[in-house]
C-alpha cells in the first residue's frame, strides 16, 4: 500500500506528522506493508492534512484528516467519510495550469529519480547544449518577469550579469518570502526543491556564475531542511559540483538562513545580510547585476522566477509566453489567504479578475460574511474594495489601479475589518522593520502611527497630514519598504473613508 501525506508546513501545522505516525502504527498492526511518501502539498490548504492513497484508478484524496479518520483508510476507501475522489479530478486541480508547480505534491521531493521521471533535468540538459547568449535569449523570449514582486524582466537581468567581466559571479536566490499571504516559495522549496536547484544551475550557465546561494528566512524551518537535503543529494549525484551532469561546467549551491528581518527580502539588504552585515538597503546604482554579492556581478532572483526556468527550457519560450495577458506572460502561482473558504495555492495564467479569484476560486470568506477588502501583494500592497474587483491580474493592470501584484499573495478580509486599524498596522510594521537608512521610512513610519491615532480620536486635520507623509515616504525612500507602505495606508483611506470618518466612535 502506498500513501502520500505532505511534509508541507501547512499540513504539518494542521497535524500531518501525528497522522504519519498513526498511519505507520495502524498499518503495522494490520500487517500491511505501507510505503508512506511525505510529499509537497497540492495547495488545497482547507483540505489539509490531505492524504492520497494510490489505487488502480489513480491517487485518491482524503481530507481534512484527523487521527480518528486513519483506521478507515485501511477499509473500503470509497466509503471513507473524508473521501474526496481522485485528486486530479478535483475542481481546484483541474482548472489550473500548473507549469512551475507541476511536480509539487505529485513527487517525492527528495527523490531525484522521481524528479527525472516527471520531466526534471530535461530543461538543464537542453541548456547544457546551448551557449550563454542563447540561454539568455530563451529566458528573454519567454517574457518571464521577476516573480518576487518587482516584475523586472529576468532575461535582461541575466544578460547584464552575463556580459559583465569579472573573475567571480554569483546566483542568489531570494527565498526571504516575508510578505503575509505569500507561501509559494515555501511550498515550492518543500515540494519540489530540485526545480529550484535546476533553475539556479541554468542561471549559472547563462551568466558564467559558478556559485549560488539560497537565502531562506528562518521562519521556514521545513523549507530549510528540505533544501539542505536536496542540495546534498544533487551534489552526490553530480547534478551540482565541478562537472554538472558530466559537463565541464561547475556549479555549487549553499543554503543560508535569514534572521527575522523583513527588509532582507529587498535584494540589496539581502546581499548585505549574506555578506554578514546588517541588512541595510544599498543605494542603486551600482546595480547588483554589476556589483552584488562581494561587489561581484550577481543575479538576485526570487524562488518562483528561478523555478520557472526549467519548464521554459523543457517546453520552450514560445509555449510559456502564450499564457497570460499584456506584458504579464506565463503563469502566476496565486496564493489565496486570510479569511477565505478555499485558501491555498492556485497556478494559472495571468488575466483572471480579482473578483473571479475571490468569489469563484476562493469561494468568498471563511466566516460567511461579505468580503470587504482584499490586500494584494503583501504588507506593502494596496487594499482593493469590491468596486475594483474587475481588475485583471497583471503587473500593469494592478499598477493602473494604484496597487501592485507583488508576489501574488491575496489576503481576504470580511466586513468586520477596520481599515483604519489596517492602515495603522501598515505604519507600525514599517516602523518595526525599517532598516533605518532613509529618514522618511525610519521616522515617517513612527509619525504615521501617531497620525493615524489622531484620526482615530476624531482629528480630521490629521488626514491631509497623513496623505502628505505618505507622499514623502513614497518619494524619499530607497526601497519598497518605506516607498510602498503608503499603498496599504492610502488605499485604505481612499477606498474606505467611512472607517476614517472623524469622531466615528463619539458619534456611535
Amino acid at each position, binding site marked *: 500500500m502506498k500513501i502520500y501525506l505532505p511534509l508541507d*508546513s*501547512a499540513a*504539518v*501545522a*494542521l497535524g500531518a506528522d501525528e497522522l504519519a505516525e498513526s498511519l505507520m502504527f495502524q498499518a503495522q498492526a494490520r500487517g500491511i506493508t505501507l510505503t508512506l511518501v511525505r510529499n509537497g502539498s497540492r495547495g488545497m*490548504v*482547507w483540505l*489539509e492534512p490531505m492524504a492520497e492513497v494510490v489505487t488502480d484508478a489513480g491517487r485518491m484524496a482524503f481530507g481534512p484528516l484527523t487521527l480518528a479518520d486513519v483506521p478507515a483508510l485501511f477499509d473500503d476507501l470509497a466509503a471513507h467519510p473524508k473521501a474526496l475522489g481522485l485528486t486530479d479530478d478535483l475542481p481546484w486541480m483541474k482548472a489550473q495550469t500548473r507549469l512551475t508547480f507541476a511536480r509539487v505534491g505529485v513527487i517525492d521531493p527528495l527523490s531525484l529519480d522521481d524528479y527525472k521521471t516527471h520531466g526534471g533535468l530535461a530543461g538543464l540538459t537542453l541548456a547544457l547544449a546551448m551557449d550563454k547568449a542563447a540561454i539568455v535569449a530563451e529566458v528573454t523570449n519567454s517574457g518571464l518577469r521577476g516573480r518576487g514582486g518587482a516584475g523586472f524582466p529576468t532575461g535582461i537581468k541575466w544578460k547584464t550579469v552575463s556580459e559583465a567581466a569579472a573573475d567571480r559571479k554569483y546566483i542568489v536566490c531570494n527565498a526571504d*518570502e*516575508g*510578505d*503575509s*499571504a*505569500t*507561501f509559494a516559495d*515555501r511550498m515550492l522549496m518543500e515540494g519540489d526543491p530540485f526545480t529550484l536547484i535546476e533553475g539556479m544551475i541554468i542561471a549559472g550557465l547563462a551568466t558564467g556564475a559558478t556559485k549560488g546561494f539560497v537565502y531562506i528566512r*528562518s*521562519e*521556514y*524551518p*521545513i523549507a530549510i531542511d528540505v533544501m539542505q537535503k536536496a542540495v546534498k543529494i544533487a551534489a552526490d549525484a553530480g547534478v551540482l559540483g565541478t562537472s554538472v551532469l558530466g559537463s565541464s561546467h561547475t556549479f555549487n549551491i549553499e543554503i*543560508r*538562513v*535569514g*534572521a*527575522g*528581518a*523583513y527588509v532582507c527580502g529587498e535584494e540589496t539588504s539581502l546581499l548585505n545580510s*549574506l*555578506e*554578514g*552585515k*546588517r*541588512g*541595510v538597503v544599498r543605494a542603486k546604482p551600482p546595480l547588483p547585476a554589476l556589483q552584488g*554579492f*562581494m561587489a561581484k556581478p550577481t543575479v538576485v532572483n526570487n524562488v518562483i522566477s528561478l523555478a520557472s526556468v526549467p519548464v521554459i527550457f523543457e517546453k520552450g519560450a514560445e509555449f510559456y509566453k502564450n499564457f497570460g495577458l499584456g506584458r504579464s506572460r506565463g503563469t502566476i502561482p496565486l*496564493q*489565496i*489567504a*486570510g*479569511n*477565505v473558504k478555499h*485558501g*491555498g495555492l492556485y497556478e494559472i495564467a495571468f488575466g483572471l479578475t480579482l473578483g473571479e479569484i475571490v468569489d469563484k476560486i476562493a469561494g468568498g470568506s*471563511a466566516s460567511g460574511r461579505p468580503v470587504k477588502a482584499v*490586500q494584494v501583494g*503583501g*504588507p506593502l500592497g494596496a487594499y482593493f474594495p469590491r468596486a475594483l474587483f474587475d481588475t485583471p491580474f497583471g503587473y500593469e493592470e494592478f499598477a493602473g489601479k494604484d496597487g501592485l501584484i507583488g508576489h501574488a*499573495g491575496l*489576503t481576504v*478580509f*470580511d466586513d468586520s*475589518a477596520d481599515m483604519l486599524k*489596517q492602515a495603522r*498596522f501598515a505604519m507600525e*510594521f514599517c516602523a*518595526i*522593520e525599517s*532598516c533605518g537608512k532613509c529618514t522618511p521610512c525610519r521616522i515617517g513610519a513612527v509619525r504615521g502611527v501617531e497620525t493615524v491615532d489622531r484620526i482615530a480620536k476624531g482629528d480630521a486635520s490629521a488626514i491631509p497630514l497623513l496623505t502628505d507623509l505618505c507622499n514623502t515616504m513614497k518619494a524619499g525612500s530607497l526601497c519598497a519598504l518605506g516607498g510602498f507602505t503608503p499603498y496599504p495606508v492610502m488605499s485604505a483611506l481612499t477606498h474606505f473613508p467611512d472607517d476614517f470618518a472623524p469622531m466615528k466612535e463619539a458619534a456611535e
Partner: protein
Amino acid sequence: MLDSVDITSRLEEILSAHKGMEGSLLPILHAIQAEFGYVPQVALPIIAQDLNLSKAEVHGVMSFYHDFREHPAGDHVLKLCRAESCQSMGADRVAAHAQKSLGIEWHETTKDGRVTLEPIFCLGLCACGPAAMINGKLVGRIDEARIDAIIGGLK
C-alpha cells in the same frame, strides 16, 4: 547563565568550523544561538577579533536581526503571527488572550521563567491562520481554546 570559560571553548570550535566561509557572521551567530540558546555578549569581542571586525560592527549585526537574543529565553518560546492574513482570522483577539492568560506582553517572559511570548511576522501559514510556533513546532488555525491547551500542555 553559562560561565565565560564554557562559552569561549565552544565558541572557538564554532569559529573554526566557519573558517573560509564567505560572509560568515550570520551563520556564526545562528550557530552560537543554537548552542547556547542566546548570543552571550562575551562572545562578541572574540567573534570580532576572529573576523577582523570591530566589536561595534558585530554588535550592530547581532542587534539588527530580530532572531538573535542577548539573554536566554524562557523554557518555552511561543511565537504568534501578527501579520495581515492571520489578523483577518482573528489573530489580534487570540494574541490578547495569550497575553492575558500568561500575564505578559510581547517580548516578555513569565515571572517563573516558563514561557516567553514573541510576535512573528508570517510563518507562511496564511491560508490556515491564525498561526503560531511553539518551541519551533508549527501550529495552524489557533484560537483561544487552542492557546489554553498549548499553554496548559507545557511542562
